[in-house]
């Protein structure tokens, strides 16, 4: 075998740079794919719940995410799923953060259909105050719905602690650990395919 090098400047980057030149884009790619427009406030209520400073009616927890019942439910069983990473909105996160939270939301939705015997589920994810976000920490609402019953307005009446504790225990018992498998936007196979296609060209 000939000498092996780890090269930063490889065929991918050469081709992509050429493509960018063709399209009239600047040659240097941005250093980060984050397009953060906001900063994270470490004293928001979800951050304090994550630090254990404020209790919550926990439904699910793993190393990446936490789910608990909303104390101002818009419908009985209203659950909030949040990432443990200090991220404010969808614009601050990487795709895997959103995928993790949504996979857990899916498991909670399925469990809630059984546990609360409801007819449907509404999932909401709000970003910035204009987008109806009230706590500046990336989260998803999973709201069990009954036919003909509209959602209550946000931040309404506080639910009784014993009701929440009972609902949380029933829901938690119905949720199995959620396996996390990353589905990358650009898989290794896709990159290899692309590289081989380019190599085959004369």
């Amino acid at each position: 075998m000939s000498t092996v090098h780890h090269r930063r400047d490889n065929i991918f980057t050469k081709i992509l740079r050429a493509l960018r030149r063709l399209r009239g884009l600047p040659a240097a790619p941005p250093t980060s794919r984050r397009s953060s427009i906001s900063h994270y406030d470490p004293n928001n209520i979800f951050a304090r719940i994550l630090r254990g400073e404020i209790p919550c009616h926990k439904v699910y927890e793993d190393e990446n995410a936490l789910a608990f019942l909303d104390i101002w439910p818009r419908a009985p069983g209203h659950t909030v799923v949040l990432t443990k990473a200090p991220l404010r909105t969808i614009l601050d996160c990487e795709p895997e953060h959103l995928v993790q939270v949504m996979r857990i939301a899916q498991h909670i939705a399925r469990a809630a259909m059984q546990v609360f015997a409801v007819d449907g589920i509404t999932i909401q994810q709000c970003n910035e105050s204009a987008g109806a976000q009230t706590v500046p920490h990336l989260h998803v609402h999973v709201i069990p719905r009954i036919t003909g019953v509209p959602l209550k307005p946000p931040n309404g009446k506080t639910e009784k602690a014993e009701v929440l504790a009972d609902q949380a225990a029933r829901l938690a018992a119905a949720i199995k650990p959620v396996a996390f498998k990353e589905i990358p936007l650009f898989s290794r196979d896709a990159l290899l395919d692309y590289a081989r296609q380019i190599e085959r060209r004369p």
Partner: protein
Amino acid sequence: MKSTSYDSNNIFAKILRGEVPCHKVYEDDKVLAFLDVRPRAPKHTVVIAKAPARNILDVDSDELAHLVNAVWLIARCLPADGLTIEQHNESAGDQEVFHLHFHLMPRQEGVPLKAPGGEIEKPETLTKQAEHIELSVSLIWNMMWNQAAEEAAGRFLFDADGRLL
């Protein structure tokens, strides 16, 4: 439990088969995104899975992950003061089309969402908006491709002539 099987004659399935046109903003092998013809806010985008799933309750977890990746990508192409994402399951959960989808609604400060099923937007407005979003998706896709390639460069081995081993 009510019937929760997939009906392949819903409007989104027809759009996927090309029987009904749409104002497309993004497409890959797993996902299609287009503008809602009855927008609840300007540039209201619907992101749907290509897999025949009714909603989040029956979809395969990996198909959902592909869909969420696309939601993440398109969310970056809808500049506004905020963004409201909704995903409805079954009629009780406000689902109207029984094919798994996410609504992405860009929001301006102080402007409430219009009621669902409102007025149909003018096709020329939708075409123009779709062009804008499609262009920013392609720019962001290109940027990320570039970065993914840069990251991959450290992981793959090349010989002295730059050939992939």
